[in-house]
């Protein structure tokens, strides 16, 4: 085996891949969140539709889309390989175990949280991404050009209570996943020092609340504004 494949098939090498792809996916979350904030603009969806058209057609974004799929793929695959290996280490479970006394829940349930996020992601992709790319939404003219009216697809979805619920639950799972994952990734990369580790941990906690809360605010906003208050 070459030194390279030996490194990345070792326990630490695989952890490293999960960490690097995890941080990359965090950067995607930021871009996705900032872009989607245009839903709140109150211009009937004009800027959101122009933005989604740009995201669907710009060659750089399309290339990054492939990198993103690879990022998700590696993150999930490596985590699965590690989880299977880790589960096999203890063939006989403890009859009585109290892990809650020595560690927090999210850190022990990253696989469960990740699976919830994956289920959410599949629903989410089917509903928006798939429709935007391969479906035929209504066209809407903005400043003389016709755009796919993705804004209406989004807003109408967020008028369904069960859809809003799926979104909020997905974001809660994401929050807990990030709460452990963000600072843990730096630890796995070996970046641990008394000078900056406390800051990473604080920022990780902040990130794990603000990003999911930002995403969850979108379905909640449209549901409360258009359904609850009307």
């Amino acid at each position, binding site marked *: 085996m*070459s*030194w390279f494949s*030996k*490194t990345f098939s*070792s*326990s*630490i*090498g*695989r*952890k*490293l891949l999960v960490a690097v792809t995890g941080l990359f996916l965090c950067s995607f979350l930021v871009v996705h969140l900032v872009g989607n904030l245009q839903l709140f603009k109150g211009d009937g969806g004009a800027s959101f539709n122009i933005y989604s058209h740009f995201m669907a057609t710009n060659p750089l974004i399309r290339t990054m889309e492939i990198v993103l799929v690879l990022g998700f793929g590696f993150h999930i695959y490596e985590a699965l390989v*590690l989880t299977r*290996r*880790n589960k*096999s*280490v*203890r*063939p*006989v*479970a*403890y*009859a*009585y*175990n*109290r*892990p809650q*006394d*020595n*560690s927090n829940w999210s*850190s*022990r349930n*990253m696989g469960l949280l990740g699976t919830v996020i994956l289920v959410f992601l599949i629903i989410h992709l089917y509903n928006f991404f798939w429709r935007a790319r391969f479906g035929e939404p209504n066209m809407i003219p903005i400043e003389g050009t016709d755009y796919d009216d993705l804004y209406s697809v989004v807003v109408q979805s967020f008028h369904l209570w069960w859809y809003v619920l799926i979104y909020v639950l997905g974001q809660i799972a994401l929050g807990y996943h990030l709460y*452990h994952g963000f600072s*843990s990734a730096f*630890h*796995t*990369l*070996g*970046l*641990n020092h008394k000078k900056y580790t406390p800051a990473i941990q604080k920022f990780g906690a902040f990130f794990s609340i603000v990003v999911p809360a930002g995403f969850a605010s979108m379905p909640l906003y449209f549901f409360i504004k258009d359904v609850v208050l009307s």
Partner: protein
Amino acid sequence: MAGNNPNSKPMNLTLRVWRQKNSQAAGTLETYQVKDISPEMSFLEMMDVLNEDLLRSGVDPIAFDHDCREGICGMCSLYINGRAHGPERGTTTCQLHMRKFSDGDTITIEPWRAGPFPILKDLCVDRSALDRIQQAGGYISVNTGGVPDANEIPIPKPIADKAFDAATCIQCGACVAACKNGSAMLFTSAKVSQLAMLPQGQVERKTRVENMVAQMDKEGFGACTNIGSCAAECPVGISLENIAMLNREYIGASFTSENV
């Protein structure tokens, strides 16, 4: 003295203990009663009392590991009420006292559970997998010849302190036992970082971490997911920072060592 302490009332306890004849046999949890246990006994002394009772009634006594009974040798183990070395933090089982329990309690006692720690008998497990990780690289090159002067090699005090903290690992295996993933990374990281921090450890630095991690994986231990239960249960308080250092050392060595 014992009689004057209001907390020193003798206790009666129910024990659920893992019994297993040998590494091949199937084991079960057996229930035993112990009476008149002094709260000032250590947990292992309570086990001694139980074993004497068992011997008197013609039952095979329970095998469990112990040696110094001073908390320094790393020989005692036991997963007590769902925790490695019992409910108290920073304590080995021999230093756990019965005053931490109450009269009438049921206590579940299991061996360390991990594939690389096969059960030999009852509560004794074979921890030589940790020895093999140590042998794979946990050593340094030393010149033979004259005795060197003391403090000949300057080592900054904070580094010496950190290396010493890592060196306090007693190789008891509680980290593996407590870890959801059965990972031995806290152990391996303590050994690796102790030597990586010191000038004496530089000669083998890169090869050491590569070989010790390879051995750790070969023994079948799990991969760390930074849960932190290992450090929380470690009787000598080995810090999780050592695992970050192990990751750093391993990644660095993988890309820069001479071992292709």
